[in-house]
């Protein structure tokens, strides 16, 4: 058995971890810029598949298939992102005689188009948001607007996923520009610029249910996750279980997800996503037919290794457990460590990891792609690592996660670590008073008195120069003298 992982970063490593535990040998693929990435060293074998550009490497189906052939892989795991939800890839893998670890290509097609997904969900008895079931075309725009839409409205790519291809139009005035942008982004991301309109649910919470189906009608559910803390429609902090849900509500969404799985004869892992509105009504949004970034919170409360179950199922075609084996205990929260600067509206950051110390101790799990010496480039997603904390209750999980984030020391790069802590320390988050607009008007509080902090920084800088001068030969002292200082000032500065 030899498994090729058609992905990179933390999820590639995550999958290989389980493979090692199962004694399955692994093959990493890598693009030019990823030649030193951790996932290439973690795997038993590693093959270069192309240049840095994703379309020439991680999105390049022929290159991936030829790597499979060269290395004699027997199965492929797509991870998330890249080709994970691409039915053509799944189909090509299966037609090459390999095991594809994921849903059937037909299922991906069905849920890949948000409009057919809505239709299927409605047929399975789920509630979907009002709105046209047609893609938006230039000539239908006026009629649709006239019909049943009021502002603000979401412009969504039918091929969207992972928060990409979703944009908000607040008024008629900006609609045209927003539609153009969404089309462009959708085309760039998914090769398909088809979009549709959906009403914006105010004060919505994002709640989703993890399912695993055997493709023959058996469906297991693993409880729900809440992912309401988002920036740019992308999740930042996720937890299991969703806080303050009643037993009835939990049973309702679980049963809805189960029904949808049943109806589609679902195979492999999948997530059924819902919005809960202010009246605690659950609306189906979409199905993610793949492993998700936030799967570890479910793993921590259930004790189940989802990747293991997924691989095991793909090879044996039968589930290793029954529903009554699955119990949730305590609470788990995941925070995403991103190469982004929250102070600059999540501007991507790049650089070299000069020093690294990752968190540990009780109840902390780290899923990371980092290593000391790693060069973070701007070529792929900004997700570097995830910290997941488990506690007997939500309060303990929050304290643990805060502790874990404080232990995370990354030298050489700005990340969202401090910002994540600021969210966890906020009163609304701690009381579970969260919805998807949480970050829109979030005002972080400073964690250390500014005076203490700036004094430390000033003293550190002064002592650093002072020590350098003391240890140098006299003639080298000039390197920070006022005359040289002047020359520096002529230089270009990064302006931040």
């Amino acid at each position, binding site marked *: 058995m030899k498994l090729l992982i058609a992905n990179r970063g933390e999820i590639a490593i995550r999958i290989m971890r389980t493979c090692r535990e199962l004694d399955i040998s692994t093959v990493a693929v890598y693009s030019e810029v990823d030649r030193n990435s951790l996932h290439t060293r973690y795997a038993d074998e590693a093959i270069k598949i192309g240049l840095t550009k994703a379309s020439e490497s991680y999105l390049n189906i022929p290159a991936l298939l030829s790597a499979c052939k060269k290395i004699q892989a027997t199965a492929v795991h797509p991870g998330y992102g890249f080709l994970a939800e691409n039915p053509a890839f799944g189909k090509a893998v299966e037609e090459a005689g390999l095991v594809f670890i994921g849903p059937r290509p037909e299922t991906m097609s069905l849920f890949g188009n948000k409009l057919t997904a809505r239709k299927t969900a409605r047929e399975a008895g789920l509630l979907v948001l009002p709105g046209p079931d047609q893609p938006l075309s230039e000539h239908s725009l006026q009629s649709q607007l006239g019909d049943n839409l009021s502002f603000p409205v979401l412009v969504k790519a039918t091929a969207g996923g992972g928060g990409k291809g979703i944009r908000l139009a607040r008024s008629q005035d900006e609609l045209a520009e927003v539609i153009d942008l969404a089309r462009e982004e959708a085309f760039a991301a998914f090769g398909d610029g088809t979009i549709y309109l959906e009403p914006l649910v105010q004060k919505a919470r994002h709640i989703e249910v993890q399912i695993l189906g055997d493709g023959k009608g058996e469906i297991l559910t693993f409880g729900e996750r809440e992912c309401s803390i988002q920036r740019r429609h992308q999740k930042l902090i996720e937890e299991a279980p969703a806080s303050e849900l009643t037993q009835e509500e939990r049973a309702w969404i679980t049963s809805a997800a189960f029904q949808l799985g049943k109806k589609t004869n679902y195979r492999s892992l999948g997530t059924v996503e819902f919005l809960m509105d202010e009246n605690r009504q659950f609306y189906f949004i979409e199905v993610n037919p793949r492993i998700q970034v936030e799967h570890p919170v479910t793993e921590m409360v259930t004790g189940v290794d989802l990747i293991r179950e997924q691989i095991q199922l793909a090879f044996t075609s039968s589930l290793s457990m029954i529903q009554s084996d699955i119990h949730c205990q305590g609470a788990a929260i995941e925070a995403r460590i991103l190469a982004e600067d929250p102070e600059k509206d999540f501007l991507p950051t790049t650089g070299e990891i000069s020093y690294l110390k990752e968190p540990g101790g009780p109840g902390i799990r780290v899923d990371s792609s980092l290593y000391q010496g790693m060069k973070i480039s701007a070529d792929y997603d*900004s997700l570097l690592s995830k910290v997941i904390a488990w506690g007997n209750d939500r309060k303990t999980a929050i304290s643990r996660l805060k502790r874990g984030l404080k232990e995370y020391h990354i030298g050489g790069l700005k990340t969202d670590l401090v910002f994540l802590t600021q969210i966890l320390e906020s009163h609304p988050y701690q009381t579970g008073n969260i919805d998807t607009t949480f970050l829109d008007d979030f005002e972080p509080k400073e964690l250390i008195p500014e005076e203490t902090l700036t004094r430390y920084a000033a003293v550190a800088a002064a002592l*650093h120069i002072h020590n350098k*001068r003391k240890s140098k030969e006299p003639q080298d002292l000039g390197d*920070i003298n*006022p005359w040289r200082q002047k020359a520096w000032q002529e230089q270009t500065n990064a302006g*931040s």
Partner: protein
Amino acid sequence: MADYRVYVGNRLFDIRIEKDLLLVNGDQYKFDLESINGNGLHILRDPIRNVEAYLQSNKNGSYDIQIDGIHLSAEVVLGFQNQTKISDKNKGLVISPMAGLIVDILVKKGDYVQEGDTILIQEAMKMQMKIRSANAGKITKLHTAIGDQVNKGELLISLDAAESLPTNPNDPQPMRK
């Protein structure tokens, strides 16, 4: 004996170091700084505290400092002479705030822009960001073209500032409303 003037954000610290004596704006402290691993990790120690500080000294003589995960910039000027800060010297330049691809340039030489006008669109990590001008002025030179892969800190566009108002730096804005 040595004197250093250190700027951290808007704060100014006059630091005097004389053997074991350290004065910060006239107040006495006991600090020492030890480099731990040659990779930027230092310990700033006082009699009752060991503080981790990562120091990265930049080419222009300023420092990026990280204390308890919080990033700060510091600029050290030797002696108590009254000098201008390095960061005040960037007026009229549009600098790339990140590594990435130039996907669009919305101005051409000779155009007149207002402070805050979007002049470029840059892409990194699958996100497109608007790069705005920090100053009003007339575009004098484009140093980049569509399709260029640029580094952080690279000079993208020069402009002749019609007025030299002390405005915000080149903070980029993501492309959303």
